[in-house]
């Protein structure tokens, strides 16, 4: 029982840290880049705007959104008896 429990909780912790701390970190990079892109009052250093920052910032936020949407898709589909396969890298839904 203890063994099973520790395995299960270890998995939750590992995936939890990857997703639950990793995604906020990517989002934080997004905010950091956007501030770098906006420049001026957005940054403590009041530097001039860097357009590249804005692009990278939105990219980070897009990555976070994509992972969340994928997560919702996995949960909803498993409720309907589907599972998501990463066999062809692009996620596809399979019955069973």
């Amino acid at each position, binding site marked *: 029982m203890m063994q099973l429990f520790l395995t299960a909780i270890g*998995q939750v912790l590992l995936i939890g840290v990857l997703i639950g701390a990793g995604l906020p970190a990517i989002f934080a990079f997004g905010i950091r880049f956007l501030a770098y892109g906006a420049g001026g009052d957005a940054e*403590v250093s009041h530097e001039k705007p860097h357009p590249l920052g804005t692009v990278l910032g939105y990219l980070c936020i897009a990555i976070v959104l994509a992972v969340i949407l994928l997560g919702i898709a996995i949960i909803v589909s498993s409720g309907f008896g589907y599972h998501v396969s990463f066999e062809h890298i692009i996620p596809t839904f399979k019955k069973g």
Partner: protein
Amino acid sequence: MILAVTLELLLLALVILTAITFDFTNGFHDTANAMATSIATGALKPKTAVTLSAALNLIGAFLSVEVALTVTNAVVHIQDSSGAPKPEFLANHGHVLLLIVFCGLIGGVVWNLLTWLLGLPSSSSHALFGGLIGATIAGLGFSGVNWAGDGSKLDGVLGKVILPAFASPFVAAIVATIGTWLIYRITAGVAERYKESGFRWGQIGTASLVSLAHGTNDAQKTMGVITLALIAYGVWTDTTQVPTWVKIACALAIALGTYTGGWRIIRTLGKGLVEIESPQGMAAEASSAAVILTSSHLGFALSTTHVATGSILGTGLGKRGAEVRWGVALRMVAAWLITLPAAAIVGGVMYLIANTLGGYLGAIVVFAILVGLMSFFVMRSRRKPVHSGNVNADWDADSNAPAAAAPAAGSEMKETLS
């Protein structure tokens, strides 16, 4: 008398009514898990937050079609593995089973309301399981309880309730601490105002995920309990589906409960434990969402309440200089520890009363006790009301009620996003 109401039909009606009441308390008890941080940081206005959370709970309840018919199997032996009631309970339209479920639900509702009155976030599933365990011990003896399963998988009171309860706050706190630390490190050069407004969006998004996850997990438990009662009585036979009206009733009850907002608990979680900023709020909800969804996907459901509390505590630990009110945290832990036994005592005593008085009288008396206790708790809550207007008032260290001299507490909401 034109329509003869048999005792079992009365019991079935009371089970359904009490189950829907429980589902409602489950909703308003747990609004805080998703929305306390967004309300505390002002990312969402209190009313907007509960409306959003209610809508997502409603959607969540319909989204997950996985049948939760075997919900009681985790703690008591009244169903077989397919979800059907054990044959020995089918006599007399499932009289004994209906009475156990009825009294167990009363235990859950009473404990949920008492902890709400005290402003303590406690697990609704623990309250339900506790009530069922107590009623089962009273009705069938200790052997009726599934204490630890057969050891081949995580099962029983130990494997599905007690061990996860001890571990989940720590797991959530670790995830949130790491997340908070990373966020503050990464955004070190960003101006405060820019940071606040950016993370508010992240906070709203992650809080929405927690609400959705709550709807998919918790509404199902009540659906499962009602369907079990219908099968035991003999008006439903399909163990692979929940009747549509049950699904709709439970989804509406949990959403309505969420919309009502357990403001006392929202206040404790959002203001009492840690004073939080938007980046911390986002880290907390992201941790909660990730831990809840991961664990339920692995078939290892953790209590939303324990996870959310651990996450909020973690954000206090992850930010340098943030203050964690350990006294409040200790009160919560104490409430968690006694939730299961306390709900069990209520469930058990109710069963003994109902069984001793017997028949119609017993069922009506315990239902009257439930209604009486509910009215008492609601009346007591009026003495120091907490509502959407004062939920964010400054935390007074001496009591968990809003400071008396905070008439326009709504203005407390920081409007830094201009």
